[in-house]
């Protein structure tokens, strides 16, 4: 039982990171019907920025919450900028082209960021250790279940960020603009919604959350490498599909399910299935409920 609960706790903290990334996929898809394959690379760069900045803020790096938050904030800011430029330079020129062009461009941006980061004078191909800004300690032990300070921080911050996002989307004019644009871009523009601004804003928000996810991953599993975004991005993408792509609460649920599934697979089956489970889930979802958990099945009129 204790083992089960322990897996549950670990799964939730991993799942909340997937949820943060999945939300970014879902937002962009909701607005542009585009799978932004470069999203995983933004996560990776979120970690890379942290790796660069931590020693700049404090040298030598010592565990401190203040430093952690400073690095988190700076990395979110930089990734927000990055997201803005990705949309501005790569996707906006293709706004009116067929969807397949945008999709291929997204893959191109993803590969570009991966290999650009691997350049020797940028980051390099060799994995590096992420500076330890929070020294892991068990803060809470109950019936054999250990909860670490890291897990508390990650889950707490992830959910706070997602609640803020939910608030922005449902209670502010920008969120209303996002929802209007996602339903009908043309009509939204006719009602005076600055569509381009709203789309930029969506990318900025999504990328900021991705940066937070990157920072959390690197803090929990202290390794940074240029390829780390691929698998994270893929799994979060599966999470978004599982929850119903384009649906924000769905993405959160999908992320949590993915985290739990992965953790339980590792715990009860074998850690070699860690990645296989994600894609097994994807196949099952596509076979039995292609619209996802919260997605609506669209009936096509003939």
């Amino acid at each position, binding site marked *: 039982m204790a083992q089960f609960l322990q897996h549950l706790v670990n799964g939730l903290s991993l799942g909340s990171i997937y949820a943060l990334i999945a939300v970014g996929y879902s937002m962009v898809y909701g607005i542009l019907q585009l799978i932004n394959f470069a999203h995983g690379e933004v996560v990776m760069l979120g970690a890379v920025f942290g790796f660069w900045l931590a020693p700049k803020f404090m040298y030598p790096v010592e565990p401190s919450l203040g430093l952690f938050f400073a690095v988190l904030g700076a990395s979110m800011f930089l990734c927000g900028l990055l997201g803005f430029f990705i949309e501005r330079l790569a996707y906006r020129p293709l706004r009116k082209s067929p969807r397949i062009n945008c999709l291929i461009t997204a893959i191109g941006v993803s590969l570009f960021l991966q290999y650009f980061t691997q350049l020797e004078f940028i980051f390099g191909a060799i994995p590096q250790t992420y500076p330890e800004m929070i020294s892991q300690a068990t803060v809470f032990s109950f019936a054999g279940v250990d909860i670490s300070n890291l897990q508390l921080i990650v889950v707490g911050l992830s959910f706070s960020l997602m609640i*803020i996002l939910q*608030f*922005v989307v449902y*209670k*502010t*004019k*920008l969120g*209303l*603009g996002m*929802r*209007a644009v996602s*339903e*009908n871009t*043309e*009509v*939204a*523009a*006719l*009602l*005076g*919604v*600055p*569509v381009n601004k709203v789309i930029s804003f969506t990318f900025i928000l999504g990328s900021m959350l991705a940066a937070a996810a990157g920072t959390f991953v690197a803090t929990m599993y202290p390794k940074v490498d240029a390829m780390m975004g691929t698998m994270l991005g893929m799994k979060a993408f599966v999470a978004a599909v599982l929850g119903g792509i384009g649906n924000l609460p769905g993405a959160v649920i999908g992320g949590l399910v993915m985290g739990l599934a992965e953790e339980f697979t590792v715990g009860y089956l074998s850690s070699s299935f860690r990645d296989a489970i994600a894609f097994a889930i994807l196949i099952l979802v596509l076979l039995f409920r292609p619209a996802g958990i919260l997605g609506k099945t669209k009936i096509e009129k003939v």
Partner: protein
Amino acid sequence: MKALEIKNLGIQFGGLKAVQNVSLHVNEYELVGLIGPNGAGKTTLFNLITGIYKPTTGSVEMDGKNIAGLSSFEITNECFGARTFQNIRLFKDLSVLENVLVSSHKKIDYNLWSVLFDTQHYRNSEKKIREEAMELLKIFSLDSKADEIAKNLPYGDQRKLEIVRAMSTKPKILFLDEPAAGMNEHETLQLLNLVRFVREKYKIGILVIEHDMKFIMGLCERIYVLDHGQLIAEGRPEEIRSNKDVIKAYLGEEETNTAVRSNLHGR
């Protein structure tokens, strides 16, 4: 000043001249109709006016401002034109109130910063636009349905909401694209009163596309007739009724036409 002034407007799609050399105007506080057979280019003309298509020739002025080079949202915000659609295009999954709030984008001055850190300012401005929107809904007696999801409204109310949503941008000219499409006689009559009410209340110019002759003849002070992308007639309803070109455009031939002529006379 004229609410709308179009000069020699034309657009070409490849070899097809969908609209050519159209000049028309709508005065402030005037109800003008635009009729024509299917495929005459009426909706294309609306798309040109609202910036969805860019014209090949000619110019469009609204409220004295040339719309050339402006995108749709700039036309809405700076030239004060608003439209409805032939097939209803509400935000189906947003509530009635939110549909009206979408246009508040230009009226609101808070940013993300104040949402997170200056909540007082954010709350006040959010409250203000909500009150304004509710007031607008009240004028059109939709306030009791403010929280309903738009797609659950009855058809007539959806049409109405589309007009209210257009009015929420505070336009000086309103474009209605077949507002009576799919309505029964009773609903059409209500719509007629609604359009008149909008004109009286807001003193704006209105340009209506409609196939329902009874509706357009009863509503408009002046009518333009479009056929094959060109204006073929202009005048008051009674002049249009007896215009030979118009009858020909609707019929193809002038004789054997009692049925259509009686249609032009309002059934």
